[in-house]
């Protein structure tokens, strides 16, 4: 199972690929929408990429609760 650091690193790569934000700017306290230029459509891409990378299911109903990178890391740690 991936560590919190590995998950953050993986998410940073995904956000960089999708939104073009430098990976080092993707930190736990950053909001996907407000800080990382990830709109609701791109968030779906982030979620699908994260599911594949970390072998985890993120239900559609859960996505709205993942406001910050930290929310996503915690969800993945708890559910993978």
């Amino acid at each position, binding site marked *: 199972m991936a560590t919190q650091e590995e998950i953050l690193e993986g998410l940073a790569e995904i956000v960089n690929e*999708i939104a073009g934000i430098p990976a080092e700017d993707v930190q736990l306290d950053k909001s996907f929408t407000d800080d990382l230029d990830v709109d609701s*459509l*791109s968030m*779906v*891409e982030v979620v699908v990429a994260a599911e594949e990378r970390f072998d985890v299911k993120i239900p559609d109903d859960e996505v709205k609760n993942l406001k910050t990178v930290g929310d996503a890391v915690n969800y993945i740690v708890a559910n993978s």
Partner: protein
Amino acid sequence: MTSDNRTVVVTGIGAFTPLGADAASTWEGLVAGRSGVSTLDEEWAADLPVRIAARTAVDPGEVLPRPLARKLDRSAQFALIAAREAWADAGFTAPATEDGSPIAPERLGAVVASGIGGVTTLLDQYDVLKEKGVRRVSPHTVPMLMPNSPAANVGLEVGARAGVHTPVSACASGAEAIGYAIEMIRTGRADVVVAGGTEAAVHPLPIVAFANMMAMSKNNDHPQQASRPYDKARDGFVLGEGAGVVVLESAEHAAARGARVYCEAVGQGLSSDAHHIAQPEPTGAGVARAIEQLLESTDVNPAEVVHVNAHATSTPQGDTAEIKALRRVLGDHLDHIAISATKSMTGHLLGGAGGIETVATVLALHHRVAPPTINVDDLDPEVDADIVIAEPRALPAEGSITALNNSFGFGGHNVVLAFRTI
């Protein structure tokens, strides 16, 4: 501002075409008589009946940042690149929504069309669905494939709030977009409109579908000679891709901000054939009606017309029907009109054609040079007109001159645009 017959001018141009990544390099290619057609050497093309096309000279992925490009269909990528060039060329440095903009967003429109829309996105995402499953279909699919996507993305880029529109009329779409934009300004609904056409349909399905209509050249062994309007051996069009965009502006608004003016966008003539879903009307009656309607609705006089950028796609029937129509309406005036078929070099950009050919027409007036028609080795004797063959030709150096740009589409749509030097 409320007048319903305002003069409209062209203040900016942009192009992303098989001949170059901007308007200047495209014009250079046109005047040099360079073909943008090449062999499709991709594996997917190996077994197709048609294995040639005019791809853009530069891949849009080299121009647009990846996070932006991946959310846009290729047709919208072309349109956005050409629109950015035209917007900057017109002297605008920021979106209309920014403070200090010389144009209010409520007075700015965008009208950009394509014939087919985001067809490669649709087909590629269907492949994703079948091969990788439901979850992997991109959430951007709908905003990418919708035919109004290029117009909407250009509107977002420049901050257009007077209206964003997408008239669709197959291969007349780009011209119809520019005509629509002229009307928006003429009637007072907007002061500036970014307008043009785009197309990105180089994909096995559209190629096979057009080929099965017997509409495309199968001259696979000689790609650069395959698009040959007016030549006796022409056997169909060559598919091209790219975009052409202009900035149209009320003459009053352009003068007030001291903008450079290329020419006047005088107006449009429109008609429809009511003849056949895909065949051109062989006597050219519908096209003639569009030219007549232009002459009736504008102050264009046949004697002032010196150049026509013809629709001429290199199909046996269409090329001659258009010439018959020009002869029918313009009579002996046609003898002093230099006719160019630039599709001999760019291929046929479908809904993008009216866009890049408007850019070519505007530059022909600006430089007073008609670009050549290449590959006319044996002129069809039915072509009773003065075709500019092989070499560019100087247009009259003095006085005001007028040029027409013709575009016709499957469905029987006929659009004729008129431009005049200032």
